[in-house]
């Protein structure tokens, strides 16, 4: 092969590899990601056997322990609709009433939801503002 053709061949090969990789990336991210739902969306649309990323705030006074299981309810960020969640596994430090959380859940019996083990994340408190301030910052 003459050098120019060889170079073009290499370029095409490299670009193809990059495209295949990028395609894989795009495809897997769309298929692996579980959709984020608010409690009211979850109640309306959740199918048994599917998993969802539930986002919302922990309802005041709803946290209970039963053995190794943690029970709490999650409500809409700006509303009162809430769903009960049963959870096992590690609980991040910032978890508390009123805190925004994300947890991977699937529909259990009726309107209760069972969380995947260790899937609880509190929304990263990256702003680390005092809560009262954070509220006023958002508004």
């Amino acid at each position: 092969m003459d050098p120019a053709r060889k170079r073009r061949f290499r370029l095409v090969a490299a670009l193809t590899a990059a495209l295949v990789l990028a395609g894989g990336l795009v495809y897997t991210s769309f298929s692996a990601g579980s959709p984020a739902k608010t409690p009211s969306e979850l109640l309306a649309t959740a199918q048994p056997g599917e998993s969802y990323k539930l986002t919302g705030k922990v309802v005041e006074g709803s946290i209970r322990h039963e053995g190794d299981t943690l029970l709490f309810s999650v409500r809409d960020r700006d509303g009162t609709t809430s769903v009960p969640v049963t959870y096992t596994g590690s609980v991040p430090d910032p978890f508390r009433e009123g805190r925004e959380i994300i947890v991977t859940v699937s529909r259990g019996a009726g309107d209760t939801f069972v969380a995947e083990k260790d899937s609880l994340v509190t929304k990263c408190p990256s702003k680390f503002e005092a809560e009262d301030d954070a509220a006023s910052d958002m508004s």
Partner: protein
Amino acid sequence: MATVGRAALLIALLICAYGVVAAIYGALTGRREWVESARRSVYALAVALTVAFGVLELAFLRSDFSFAVVAGHSSTTTPTFYKASAMWSSQEGSLLLWVWLLSLWASLVVFLTRRRMREVVPWATAVLLGYGAFFTALLVFAVSPFETLAQPPADGSGLNPLLRHPAMMIHPPMLYSGYTLFAIPFAFAVGALVARRVDAEWIRSTRRFALAAWLVLGVGIVLGARWSYNELGWGGYWAWDAVENASLMPWLTGTAFIHSVMIQEKRGMLKIWNVSLVLATGILCVLGTFLVRSGILDSIHAFGASTLGVPFVGLIAGMSLGSIALVVWRRDLLRSEHRLDSLLSREAMFLLNNLVLVALCFVVFWGTFFPLISEAVTGEETSVGPPWFARYTVPLALVLVALSGIGPLIAWRRATAVNLRRTFAFPLACGVVALVALLFVPGVPQKPLALSMFALGAFVAGTVGQELWRGARARRTTTGEPLPVALTSLVRRNRRRYGGYLVHLGIVVMFVGVAASSAFQTAQDRRLSPGDTARVDGYEVRYVRATAEVGNDPSGTGAMLSLGAVLDVSKDGRHVATLRPARSFYPSNRTASGSVEWLIAGEPTSEVAVRSTLLSDFWTAVNPDMRELQEVIDQADEAVAADIPAEQQPMVAFRLLRDVIAPNYVEDPPPAMFRMIASPLVAWIWIGSLIAIGGGLIALWPAPDAARRRATATLRARVAQDLGRA
């Protein structure tokens, strides 16, 4: 005082505005006095911002709650050590820190280049002052750190207890130093493109800045990981969280940049690639700052309300479009002086290393922004988790480690079979021996990815060892120095090269630690009562007794109540450690009240207890059951409110907590939740990063050039003397 701060910021903004105009006017007309004036305005900016920074820092140290920022992020009960760092926990304070650091680095670089690169420097100065103008304008118009309160509160809300950790004192300044240091090569790349001076001079002038940026950004990332491991109570060091990813992306492209510039310096190749990389790195640094401060990925809906969103998006869009336009505009100048001769050459390996790093960066970028992308495409906000990231980053990391062994050793232009055999026989043997040996370690063959990482690690360690040995031996032969001396002087005389090897070694050691601790980790969450025993990966853990400390916390974070546990850890019947994890409770950040509840209503944090050895870490955290305690506290508070006069309530509440409630908990504690993690080789993550930092410092150390110059000066003097005598 606030007026002084506000005035300093306003002056800083005017200086920036003037300096940008002066620099551009000077560059266009070639009038040196205007360029000089622009350079002096960089110094003036540093002075003005130092004043502003000093005023704010002083207000934090003095707990001057007439400053709204101080009242919102510090308090009289915040330990002094943490009052200083409370400044950058606030939006305003952290932006001020950013632009202050920028002004310092900018002053340094314009000072160092004051007699060089006459065409490039004015444009670079304009870019740096442009950054300054953007951030000071934000501080003046959008988020002023010098807002004052008409009625200062008696006490502030305090620093978030999660941030009361030594790593958090230096982690943000490190990250921001990295971000702002990368602004320097960015500005010079822009300057070089505008001024049509795209040879390697701009790279040489800013090389140290790029390297320093890479180093401190890396240190910042490691400190963040360390903080996460010790403070967040979940036992991990990396979670692919948006904020972590934000700092990783510029570090990845920056790593690619400091490698690929060597190709341009040596062979005049990859010019388009280098300017693109450094422009991308500069943009990613601003993006990183933006992601952390705006909260856009926390919630898209909060984004519209954030005061910073629109200006930052404008800046990032402007930087991106401007960069693309510049590269396209100057593409004729950026042609390569040479072609790639062979795929078996150092150039090709460096190029491949760059492609892998950029691919890694793209994976991280895609995963981080996927919630926004998916919302735009499908209308549904979807996110990808750590398994998705691991699927792509682990194989890429393996390739990267292999390249870090091959790249520095393979010949330039074209490697021959003889050359390859001579260079790689020993390292390959190291890798194969490690591979075979590990095949017999039970459990390891089941984890092929971790196994490959270990084997590749041995290969890279082999290359570094061989290089050091060969170099030192050669030096001993020529100079007759004993081996240790030969080794030191070898490293001292080729700091960049051997520093680089050490960095590679450190990174590989770190990756081995990461691979081992993530592949062979055992984690358990157990509810235990005193006397109970749990088994975790061969360890036997006995919950001996509960502890409760009031107003006495050894780590100095200002905790009011610490509920802990004494754990007796043994292995094979032998006692190995006594661990004391605890959970700390802090006073509420709401207005003071005389109740027990108030004393402990703040953000609780885990004080983890770790037994760390070179072979493995045993990590524990405790989460006490607060239900019974809460009932007792509620009863106590009712009694206090009913029977005690208001002014005595705070003291009575404290005494109740200390003398009744806490001892009660110790006497008859309810079962507590324990998280226990046994993971091998975690210590090597920190050791590896120390090695890499050491290597980076060696590469950065400025001695060789200066020393050489001094040496030649002496030589010249001697020759002149000899000539005079002759």
